[in-house]
């Protein structure tokens, strides 16, 4: 009885000590919170998880993928430590940020993505369909309504007799999305008849709207004759048939990480708000865009700032970029990374920083 008692007392003490150590370890943990775009969310979550497990277990970054717009609002409200967006700060939001903090937001690109046309045509396999610029412009504006239209046949002499006598069902995003922002920026630059402009959500002249990349993918799969735009990483994940596109130089290109990386290798302006609506290189993939992390230029807490900067630098280092490639996102070019690091080092600590 006595041994039992002492044994339980011992285990109780051990438990208490264990709890105490656990508590003190927790006290050292730095919690960093971010919010924003859904498209880069899988990459961000992999990055932050890998960083926590392999590099620095005391850093816990939580990222809520609530959408670019909602993320920017949270940055303006001071509710998060960083935001992520697929569209640069602009308009009323930029003015609100300036008015509240008295400086320009720090927006740094962390990577990019490409957008592909995915289709559901019974007899036509992945990569067989070629879309020239006038043709896909005609599809999105509703001028071309049939798959056996002569303009599509002219683009595809090899498979002209296999193009089915089906109506074209255009599938677009119904939710506001950075994917739509990048895609419509491209349309605006390329299509003379595109009047809906560019934005995270636009007034589509034709088509069916579906929620998220997964909704677009499901709708395309359910509809013979459907075509829509999805993020490249998603098209690969869902094994969707995608089209080869004509780029600005007039060449027909298929998506590859190299073609997309070279498309994004353009001179980056001082505010990093690089949009490449229509890349010029001869082998560039035509529809690409960046995503940015939105930061303050002053943080109240030295330790949190240090950890945040270390984490962000790691994402651009060799391990971080390996994950970027693995998940089919586009890593930033080396020259841009040096400038990003310089901007990160310039963030200051101010205990009275506005939040």
């Amino acid at each position, binding site marked *: 009885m006595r041994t039992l008692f002492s044994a339980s007392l011992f285990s109780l003490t051990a438990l208490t000590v264990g709890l105490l150590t656990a508590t003190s370890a927790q006290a050292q943990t730095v919690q960093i919170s971010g919010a924003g775009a859904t498209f880069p969310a899988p990459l961000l979550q992999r990055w932050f998880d890998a960083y926590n497990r392999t590099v620095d277990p005391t850093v816990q970054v939580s990222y809520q993928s609530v959408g670019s717009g909602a993320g920017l609002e949270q940055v303006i409200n001071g509710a998060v430590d960083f935001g992520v967006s697929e569209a640069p700060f602009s308009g009323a939001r930029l003015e609100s940020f300036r008015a509240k903090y008295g400086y320009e937001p720090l927006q740094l690109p962390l990577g990019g993505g490409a957008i592909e046309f995915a289709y559901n045509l019974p007899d036509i396999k992945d990569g067989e369909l070629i879309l020239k610029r006038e043709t896909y412009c005609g599809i999105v504006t509703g001028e071309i309504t049939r798959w056996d239209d002569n303009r599509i046949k002219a683009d595809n002499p090899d498979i002209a007799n296999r193009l089915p006598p089906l109506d074209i069902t255009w599938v677009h995003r119904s939710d506001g999305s950075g994917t739509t922002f990048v895609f419509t920026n491209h349309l605006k630059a390329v299509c003379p008849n595109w009047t809906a402009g560019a934005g995270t*959500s636009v*007034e589509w002249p034709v088509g069916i709207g579906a929620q998220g990349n997964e909704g677009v993918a499901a709708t395309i799969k359910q509809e013979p004759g459907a075509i829509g735009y999805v993020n490249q990483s998603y098209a690969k994940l869902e094994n969707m048939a995608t089209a080869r596109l004509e780029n600005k130089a007039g060449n027909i290109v298929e998506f590859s990480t190299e073609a997309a990386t070279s498309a994004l290798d353009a001179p980056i302006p001082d505010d990093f708000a690089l949009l490449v609506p229509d890349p010029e290189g001869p082998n560039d993939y035509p529809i690409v865009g960046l995503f940015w992390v939105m930061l303050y230029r002053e943080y109240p807490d030295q330790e949190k700032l240090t950890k945040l900067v270390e984490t962000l630098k790691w994402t651009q280092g060799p391990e971080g970029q390996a994950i970027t490639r693995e998940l089919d996102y586009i890593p930033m070019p080396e020259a841009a990374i040096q400038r990003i690091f310089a901007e990160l080092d310039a963030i200051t600590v101010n205990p009275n920083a506005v939040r």
Partner: protein
Amino acid sequence: MTSAATGYGSPPNPDIDVDIEKKASPSRAVDVGFVRLTLALAGFAGIILIWVILQTTEAALPAIQQFGLGFLVTARWNPVENIYGVLPQIYGSLMTSLVALIFAIPLGIGTAIFLTEGFAPKWVTAPIGFAIELIVAIPSVVLGLWGIFVLIPAVRPIFRAINQTLGWIPFFGGPAPRGPSLLIVAMVLGIMISPIIISITRSTFESLPRSLKEGALALGATRWETILTVMIPAGLSGIVSSIMLALGRALGETMVAAMLSGNANRINISLMQPGSTITALIASQFGEAGRLQVSALMYAGVVLMVLTLLVNIVAEIIIRKFQNLEQ
């Protein structure tokens, strides 16, 4: 009594009075407390409702000032140029809900009659009743997925046939129907709201006095005549209120509409073409909306609240009318 007590020479014991009050007070305090608690709870519910309405309207103010009542008749939703109107969504919300009722009312009332009028033994009706209650437990996102992967491919040939033969009716017109459409939304909504009609109608029939039915049968009415001419008119107020509840549910349903309507923010009379509803618009656009767009979405929310309020008022009027008829 007190004077008599003083007459005995001993001073009146002031504790006695107090004691009586003390004994009475605990149960009385509970009583009063309970009344106040229920009052507070009822008030709380009302305050939350008013608070939500005020906050939504306040957030909608910039859009209300900019677009005014033109918002209700404009058929454009253009976040790039900040031009907003919800006519297609109002049409979509009303039409999907009304058509859902066309599916749900016969289904609901028929099932309720079958379950209560002794057409089948208990071992048949009990599992059916249980299954109906389970429909309510299906999450709407699951019904949405079922709509995309099962219902749409199943009804597509039927829709195409209707479109080809009856295409001259505007509601079935347009190009050959593809996947998502307002009619698909209405069908799934009909399935979703029928349990409401069934359960309320069923309890209405069960609560009708037996003498009504027995009297009708005694007068020589057949079972069919009894149901049509006695049971349904007698239970009409219950049936109508169940229908109105179901209509309110259909107007507010979001996930099914967002997944199956096609989210086309264009006006299209045909129910076989993609459309949109107010709830689907708000749900799909909120996350990435710009400042004025958020305000316009809030305005759309206010419009939906007013629509629902109107439906409830109409329901109340109809129910009162029928109650008068019964008396």
